């Protein structure tokens, strides 16, 4: 037989179990710490399990105005950028999949460059540009930039979905005399809806996770959760308990998403690379 003779079934399963434990352990540790008061959280790790659970860290974090404000900004930026990306990437993905428009190679190259270039290259000029138009410390600017940076990946995803959908239906609709807008609205969009959803999830997670752009372009108003959480390392010592509680609150939506949507996520991650 093939590999089966080399790796016993139990060894394979044990390896996967260990991998899963390694993947989950830091999260479990943070969850545990988030339930400790300051004294227990700063006790040495050998006393890690002897504590009385408390929700005071969560109460502290949620009741601080800074956190709620940051959560609001993060939500605003994430939702608007995701909506923007959904529209732009669907149009662009369709164009790349079906149309021969002038400059497609150029545009594709620019998009790949935007995708791979280190953020430090772009963030300095972006700060200058944003200041120039008076949008420094404004969440709209952060949302717009995150939209732009997320478009390439989402477009490639949509491209893969359009390629995977049958062209015959489009042709039939076209022959039936459907206008272009009608075709797009009533035929194409429903057909690639799962693709749009997948692109939306990836965009939302990427925007939610962004740090460098918001930390440079935000100040007192446009503070996202990622920027806010860095402040738990303070002049008065690191507040590990509240930090862990905040970490749990920031990561929880992602973990829930991952658990609920694992199929489209796996498909999206590998989309396009495998024939």
């Amino acid at each position: 037989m093939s590999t089966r003779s080399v790796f016993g079934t139990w060894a394979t399963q044990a390896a996967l179990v260990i991998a899963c434990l390694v993947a989950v352990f830091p999260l479990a540790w943070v969850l545990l710490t988030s339930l400790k008061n300051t004294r227990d959280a700063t006790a040495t790790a050998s006393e890690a399990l002897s504590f009385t659970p408390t929700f005071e860290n969560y109460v502290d974090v949620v009741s601080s105005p800074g956190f709620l404000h940051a959560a609001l900004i993060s939500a605003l930026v994430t939702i608007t950028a995701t909506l923007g990306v959904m529209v732009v990437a669907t149009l662009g993905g369709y164009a790349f999949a079906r149309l021969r428009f002038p400059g497609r190679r150029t545009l594709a190259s620019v998009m790949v460059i935007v995708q791979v270039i280190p953020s430090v290259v772009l963030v300095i000029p972006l700060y200058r540009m944003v200041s120039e138009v008076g949008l420094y410390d404004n969440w709209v600017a952060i949302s717009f930039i995150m939209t732009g940076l997320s478009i390439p990946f989402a477009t490639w995803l949509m491209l893969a979905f359009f390629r995977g959908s049958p062209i015959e239906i489009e042709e039939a609709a076209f022959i039936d005399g459907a206008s272009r807008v009608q075709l797009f609205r009533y035929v194409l969009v429903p057909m690639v809806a799962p693709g749009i959803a997948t692109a939306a999830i990836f965009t939302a997670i990427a925007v939610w996770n962004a740090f460098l752009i918001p930390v440079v372009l935000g100040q007192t108003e446009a503070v996202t959760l990622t920027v806010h959480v860095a402040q738990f390392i303070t002049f008065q010592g690191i507040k590990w308990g509240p930090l862990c509680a905040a970490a749990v609150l920031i990561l929880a939506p992602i973990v829930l998403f991952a658990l609920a949507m694992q199929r489209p996520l796996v498909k999206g991650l590998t989309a396009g690379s495998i024939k």
Partner: protein
Amino acid sequence: MLVMDSPSANGLKALAKTYQSETGIEIKFVEVPYEQLATKVILAAKSKQATYDLAQVDAGYMPQIVTAKALAPLDDLIAADKDYNYDDFPEGLKAYAKYDGVSYSVPLSTEPYLQWYRTDLYTTLGLTPAKTWDDALANAKALQAAGDIGYGGVYDASGAAYFYLSMLQSSGGRLLDPETNQPLLDAPVAKTVMARYLELAKYGTPGVESATVFDAVNSFSQLNVGQMILASGWWSTVNDTASSKSTGLVATANTPLSTDGPYEPVSSLFGWVAGISSASTHQQAAWDFLSWALSAENAGAFIDAGAPPPARISTTSNPEFLEKLPYLAAAGEATTDGLPLPRIPELSQIIAVISQNISAMVTGQKSLDDGMAAAQDAVLNILVQSGRYNG
């Protein structure tokens, strides 16, 4: 107001509540991590948008921030405000809030580096606070021999230089020649002091080679760390009953002084200042709050909120305050005797390169000689590039 989560900011926040109930003016505080504070102030200034009115600024970074035109000159506001009574401040402290002879800020806190020690451990072992750095080393040895931690040091790659440079100043050395700005890290005293600084790491906590000032304060509050050098403003943190195990067991003394170099050994002066954004559209209102919060009348309320007060003469000589904050007397002396680090815009860059080299030396990546040579080189480079020194 942009603040950094610190005892000073807590004091201002407490006072702002009172201010609001008296005047109806609400002051919104935005907390920024320490290493981003100067960055945010400068980025805001360059963006020319009034994102904040007031800012808490590390006095050491003030020259840099002023060079970026981020702070408004305050001399007219100060002169017009009789209630603020600026003459109540010692000249040294006024100079501390100025750059190029212009007041761009007012003192928010006066925090000389002091020697902190654990009274319980010192009593048990029969130790006395160190007068010289040799004493400090001897105390560290005695503490370690007794199973305690001999010295709480700071050795991380971003902030260690503050503590090294403070030790250098208190040992008769200087970072720069006061006349020519020539970097002096190649002087014998700089190396002697660095050797001692690295030596003290052997008496630190297990993680001391990467310890930031936050780690050091945490260790000092939680573990049996016998002594350390620390800014006086940490008093309320170390004595916070909710999180510290060392409450009531801590006392301060002046920095140990040694004569290893040609200059006069002095303690180092640090502290926060508060400034007003040059882009602010409410400069008068911002000043009114500052003047009120930092007035002599409010010093008591400020201290009760856990904040280290600005060292007004009337404050440091007030017996009631001296009882509450035993270190105040030393703070008062430091305003006349203490020396701040060189007040040049390149300071943050210099701190970074020296700290990196200290970190490399303490973790064995560089030898003492290599590290000192590299640090001198880097500092020289920075000063020549900016035109501050043309040797």
